């Protein structure tokens, strides 16, 4: 498979470890150049965070393993960019917020 340039994950996690540790652990995975971790929702026992990971050749298995080791669950893979160029999604007339 060609190199993965961007990976966006929706992650469910316990309150501890906190969001910084998820950003730190995933940023240490092979092929990762940077990570943005954003809190989406906080419930009584758990939190939902969005991890936006970019790099030249992201090792997505290592990223998922790092998330799992911290006690998180990948709920969904929300965006993947693969190939030589970093391609943004294009607008279509069906998009609600054009």
């Amino acid at each position, binding site marked *: 498979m060609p190199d993965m340039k961007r990976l966006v994950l929706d992650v*469910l*996690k*316990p309150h*501890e*470890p906190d969001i910084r*540790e998820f950003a730190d652990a995933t940023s240490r995975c092979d092929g990762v150049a940077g990570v943005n971790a954003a809190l989406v929702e906080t*419930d*009584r*026992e*758990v939190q939902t965070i969005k991890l936006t990971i970019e790099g030249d050749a992201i090792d997505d298995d290592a990223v998922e393993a790092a998330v*799992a*080791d*911290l*006690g998180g*669950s990948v709920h969904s893979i929300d965006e993947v960019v693969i190939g030589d160029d970093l391609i943004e999604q294009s607008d279509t007339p069906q998009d609600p917020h054009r």
Partner: protein
Amino acid sequence: MSRLRGLRAALADEDVRSISRRYFISNGFDGTLTSIGVVVGAYLSGITDGLTVFAIGLGGAVGLGTSGVWSVWEIERAEKQAETLRTEAAMLRELDDTIVARRDRHGRVVNAVMSGIGPLIGVVLPLLPFLVVPEVVSLEAATAAAVAIGVSVLFTFGAYLGSISKQRWYVAGVRMGLAGLVVAAINFVLPT
């Protein structure tokens, strides 16, 4: 994460420190009052050998220290397990073999060790004067010194608690130290 690094991280974790502090002070308080009770009781019972008093007290220290470690290990295991089960139910996954479980284990080790150290300090420090009876001090003086050391240990516990909670440390210290004098006084008035 290596075990040593994990334990060091647990020592720096404020939640672990807070629980450890409670066990350390609570069991240290028990141990110190027990020690004061033992030395005053031994004196009033007519024991004349300092090493015998020390040995009796040391037996108590072993018992209280073991109790401190063992009970806290089991208490924290149950409490953390209950907490983890709630989180697992919300996460819809098990958390065994994750950083969460490893941190709980390291935190439990620190809690248990601190819980055991408290009574060891509380019991053994007041007993030290009995190691130099009769060469350096008399039995009466050793007993008085033991009570004074015990009260000082209690004062230190209280002052420490006062300092971390922004109370007047000397008032908190006196409140705790008073308990040592009360135990000594009760022992004196009790028929032996």
